[in-house]
């Protein structure tokens, strides 16, 4: 092992680690605000990557139908709940927003020549298709049971993940896909080649992390989300509705997942079911942060990325084993240090 190889593996590790860090933050955010362990986080990643690939390859995209189905389900649930509360069927104009949006998305995907649109437009479109899945997912699957036991939330979360993997197979097929890099070339730094894709990933991740920091520290809505995580009853008593907090955190999770998917698409081949293992590594990072600390989770996830890169070199076939075994000492340390975590409510 020489300097060149260390630099190469380090670069790989940092690239993957940055993605895992984003996903760790997202999982942490959703968990602290809603108590839901977002297992389907990975589907945002794989769906976004496969959307990019399908657009680039000029293949038909069916994800608009998933959006439409979810928005219709959300509309039906809304109507049902209003009926149960007021005894009459009342829907406001705003309730149809997602449905109209989905219809527009379906129409656009069916007619527009997306293959020739260029990377930035494809990426924006992908965000536009994936991000609404977040709030819709919360509305359809979680809103009604939001006050339930965290175990119930976990089971539903797993079910949603399994269902989405199946739907992913239907929409994108079994073949993996990888897209062209955003930019060619590389730069020389300290005698090593730094791949331009690495720079993209690191830069976008850093920008996103800084943006999230400002959102949570400086804006009222960010503070409201934090408040919900700190004290759910207190948040509800000052008028921060759990539905709003849930939808907002799921939207952020979908945004982070979709961005990660777009970033990772030129680096690895993504299959319909690749998201799970990727987000699982983010999850290991958030466990290292005790499902509570954002900076520790991000650093932990970066460490996972590096550990993965170096174990690929030394013991390639044991790579996943090594990465997931890393969680054990942290769990042991956490449980010894805290004597078990008690439920707040």
């Amino acid at each position, binding site marked *: 092992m020489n300097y060149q190889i260390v630099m190469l593996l380090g670069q790989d590790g940092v690239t993957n680690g940055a993605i895992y860090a984003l996903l760790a933050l997202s999982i942490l955010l959703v968990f602290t605000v809603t108590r839901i362990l977002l297992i389907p986080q990975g589907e945002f990643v794989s769906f976004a990557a496969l959307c990019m690939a399908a657009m680039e390859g000029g293949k038909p995209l069916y994800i608009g139908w998933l959006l439409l189905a979810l928005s219709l389900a959300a509309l039906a649930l809304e109507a049902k709940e209003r009926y149960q509360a007021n005894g009459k069927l009342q829907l406001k104009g705003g309730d149809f927003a997602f449905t109209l949006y989905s219809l527009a998305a379906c129409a656009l995907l069916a007619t527009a020549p997306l293959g020739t649109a260029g990377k930035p437009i494809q990426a924006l479109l992908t965000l536009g298709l994936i991000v609404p899945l977040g709030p819709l997912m919360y509305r359809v699957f979680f809103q009604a049971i939001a006050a339930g036991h965290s175990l119930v939330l976990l089971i539903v979360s797993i079910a949603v993940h399994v269902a989405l993997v199946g739907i992913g197979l239907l929409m994108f097929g079994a073949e993996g896909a990888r897209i062209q890099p955003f930019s060619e070339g590389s730069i020389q730094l300290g005698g090593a080649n730094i791949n331009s894709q690495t720079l993209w990933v690191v830069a976008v991740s850093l920008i996103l992390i800084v943006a999230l920091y400002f959102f949570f520290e400086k804006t*009222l809505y960010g*503070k*409201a989300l934090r*408040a919900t995580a700190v004290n759910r009853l207190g948040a509800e*008593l000052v*008028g921060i509705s759990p539905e709003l907090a849930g939808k907002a955190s799921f939207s952020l999770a979908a945004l982070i997942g979709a961005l990660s998917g777009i970033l990772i698409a030129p680096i690895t081949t993504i299959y319909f079911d690749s998201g799970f293992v990727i987000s699982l590594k983010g999850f290991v990072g958030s466990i290292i942060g005790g499902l509570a600390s954002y900076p520790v989770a991000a650093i932990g996830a970066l460490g996972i990325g590096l550990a993965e890169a170096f174990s690929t070199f030394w013991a390639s076939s044991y790579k996943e084993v090594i990465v997931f075994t890393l969680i054990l000492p942290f769990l042991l340390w956490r449980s010894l240090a805290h004597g078990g975590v008690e439920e707040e409510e």
Partner: protein
Amino acid sequence: MSNVVDKPLLAVKDLCVSYGKIEALSNANLAVGEGQIVTVIGPNGAGKTTLLSALMGVLPSKGEICLDGKIETSPPIKEMIAQGMSLVPEKRALFATMSVEDNLRLGSFRFHRRPKKEHEASMEEMFALFPRLKERRNQLAATLSGGERQMLALARALMGKPRLLMLDEPSLGLAPLIVREVFRIIAELRRKGVSILLIEQNARAALRVADYAYVLELGHIAMEGPASQLANDPRVIEAYLGSSGKHQEMLST
């Protein structure tokens, strides 16, 4: 007898709350007039906290809750907030890892569409009312003392400009001097026109500050009357003001 007021802000009719098969509150009737302080006293486990939780919509209930003439049955919590109800729960429910200022800012979240100036103005109002909080405006809520936390909980609730403030045991676990301060503020809030529904174990202090009082026992309203009258009722004296009344008197004046 009942709390007869010209304009009841809150009127509750036959309110029942059950936990499974156990009825924690049965057929409670009570009223709070505009600008009044009404207190509910009673022993531990009488259903006082249950009553407030049901009124706020935290717990599902049966019966009518009439706020400003609008009748609701088991209202959702956001409806009650929109109507101007505010609850300071016994455990305060502060945002412990956030600063005093942020706690206050979030207190007026229901007006989040209004201009920022307005929020800053009401925060300054709170700092005038609670100078201790101003000194600690950048400190995390978790680092405050018990009394300061209660002040913060009160101030956060007031940031939402409530028409009816419901306080659950605001003096619980506080040093006597701080208890006095809390009741001084409650009296001052009434002068500012805030209607208050106060739940207290410190019956003596509660009866002194209130206009009207209810005694809740085992989920039933056992007695009610103007606070001054109830304070002299031999049954109330025996059960709630008791022989240690002299001692309490010293503490709470």
